[in-house]
């Protein structure tokens, strides 16, 4: 009956209760949507980075990624490929030869990391072929084609079919200059990646650096993000120790960091909103108790003990908060579903976000686990804001309350 009394007490001052309920609902909706946007940004950045840059897993010889010394190559690529092909959880893979070098034109120079790729196999592990905005993806130029980014093209003032010079060191440490022709110009959503990367055919790079058959990197995509860790574990146990087998998180720690940070910031953000709402709830409950001093005094007089009076107030507070929380969560879940499908067009701020590695359209998103945690947070807010009013009620003395 105590819970029933609390429930009915909520509706005694309908307008006042509705005001605080709506405040909770609106506050939560705003909070959830913002969190969804932040989360979507982080997720999209992560997905884009995986699709265009890191894939899921990368294998190098230990030491290669320290300063990309071309002598740290994979010694037994066939054996590694055999191990990869056996694993059903691996969807696709591709080998790369890598060299850090200068691109020069009459108008200037740019340092890039040149990825020697197999154009066909590369399609299965990266979306770079879809990011070509001018020219074509390794089509139309027979001899020494190179794919450069729009950023680099603008910097060097070159167009498709322009000739450029690559200056590099070969495997024997001799300086080599080679002429390449721009086959295509790409643009991903990460300007940082674009500035630092260019693609050529693996065979061309191997030939020019006198490193026939040399691979520096094997890049892997698995069937499901969840499989990354187990696949790495089984590759590590099957392959020699001098290999560095890393997940996308290890390849780009800042990606993992962003997604962790986003998670923490989101809870901090919601925590602040809920903390503010808690004071609204607290105020509403204090008003309610102030109006019912006499009633509570009577209850104490006739023998309702302090614990039950305490619980009566706590329940009422929890009901208020949970009704508001429920409405807020339902509204935001519906909005999130809609926005998650529709996306938010960010073209107004598109340039800034491109540097951050997110496309023009943002898809806010949240996990089911998030909603669960949110419900818990609302619940704790309710309990938090009920304690002071409930103690306030206990302080009442039956005689004075009845007199008052």
């Amino acid at each position: 009956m105590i819970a029933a009394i609390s429930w009915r007490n909520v509706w005694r001052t309908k307008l006042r209760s509705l005001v605080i309920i709506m405040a909770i609902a609106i506050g939560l909706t705003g909070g959830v949507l913002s969190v969804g946007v932040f989360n979507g940004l982080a997720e999209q950045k992560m997905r884009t980075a995986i699709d265009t840059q890191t894939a899921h897993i990368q294998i190098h010889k230990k030491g290669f990624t320290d300063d990309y010394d071309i002598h740290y190559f994979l010694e037994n690529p066939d054996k590694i490929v055999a191990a990869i092909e056996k694993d059903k959880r691996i969807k696709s893979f591709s080998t790369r030869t890598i060299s850090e070098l200068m691109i020069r034109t009459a108008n200037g120079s740019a340092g890039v990391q040149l990825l020697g790729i197999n154009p066909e196999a590369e399609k299965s592990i990266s979306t770079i072929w879809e990011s070509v905005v001018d020219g074509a993806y390794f089509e139309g130029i027979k001899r020494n084609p190179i794919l450069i980014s729009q950023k680099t093209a603008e910097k060097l003032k070159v167009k498709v079919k322009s000739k450029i010079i690559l200056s590099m060191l070969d495997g024997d440490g001799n300086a080599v200059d080679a002429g390449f022709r721009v086959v295509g110009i790409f643009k991903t959503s990460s300007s940082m990646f674009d500035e630092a990367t260019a693609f050529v055919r693996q065979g061309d790079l191997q030939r020019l650096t006198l490193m026939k058959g040399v691979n520096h990197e094997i890049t892997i995509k698995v069937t499901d993000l969840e499989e990354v860790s187990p696949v790495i574990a089984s590759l590590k146990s099957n392959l020699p120790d001098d290999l560095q087998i890393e997940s996308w998180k290890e390849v780009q720690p800042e990606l993992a960091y962003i997604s962790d940070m986003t998670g923490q910031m989101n809870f901090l953000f919601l925590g602040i909103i809920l903390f503010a709402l808690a004071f609204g709830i607290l105020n509403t409950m204090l008003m309610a108790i102030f109006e019912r001093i006499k009633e509570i005094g009577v209850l104490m007089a006739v023998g309702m003990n302090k614990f039950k009076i305490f619980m009566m107030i706590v329940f009422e507070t929890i009901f208020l908060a949970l009704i508001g929380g429920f409405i807020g969560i339902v509204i935001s879940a519906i909005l999130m579903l809609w926005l998650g499908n529709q996306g938010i067009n960010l073209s107004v701020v598109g340039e800034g976000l491109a540097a951050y590695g997110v496309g023009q359209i943002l898809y806010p998103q949240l996990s089911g686990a998030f909603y669960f945690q949110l419900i818990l947070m609302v619940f704790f807010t309710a309990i938090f804001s009920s304690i002071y009013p409930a103690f306030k009620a206990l302080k009442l003395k039956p005689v004075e309350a009845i007199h008052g």
Partner: protein
Amino acid sequence: MSIIQLKNISKIYNPDTIPVYALDKVNLEIQEGEFTAIVGPSGSGKTTLLNMLGGLDLPSEGKILINNTDLQSLSSKQLIDFRLYNIGFVFQDYSLLPVLTAKENVEFIMQLQNRSKAEYEKRAIELLDEVGLGERIHNRPSKLSGGQQQRVAVARALATKPKFILADEPTANLDSKSTNDLLDIMKKMNKESNITFIFATHDQRVIDKARRVITIDDGAIIKDEINTSVA
């Protein structure tokens, strides 16, 4: 048998600032089955005395024994339970819970005593029948007249099977008809079930029905007489 004994009770409000001597060395015994009115002018200490009898407030000096339990020896938690099981209260302005129906108001107090559902449902209906509200058990207080609400309050006070019932100005807000109905009901319970009633009142209609009339003034009992003309 004496169910209440007050020994040299004094009550001083605000002892540290402007002391008010609301009760001054009051001695009083109440027997089971009494129908007693405490009367006196406004501010004479009636409510204060009733609060002492009901364990709602403790005296500054003296001793209160109810059923041989010394109220001062109880912790505040024990005192609440003691009230729940031993004392019924009826207040001037009805004091029902507005969100509960008549029946729920009566049931609620029995739930506080942890009685079984079957028991409290049956007893609530019986008691509301007895106070003449068998038809109105599902009405909330706002749908009942003052007199009807006060009868629900009497049913609630009786529900816990207390040793006695304290009523502070129960008729102050009632018209003559309601007052008479209420008094008849209480009188009948007193006669048939030997339930003890103690009133604090100005109301002559109540005083006329009381078998014992205790008059206080300035916190002291100045008269204590049996009204032989009342049955």
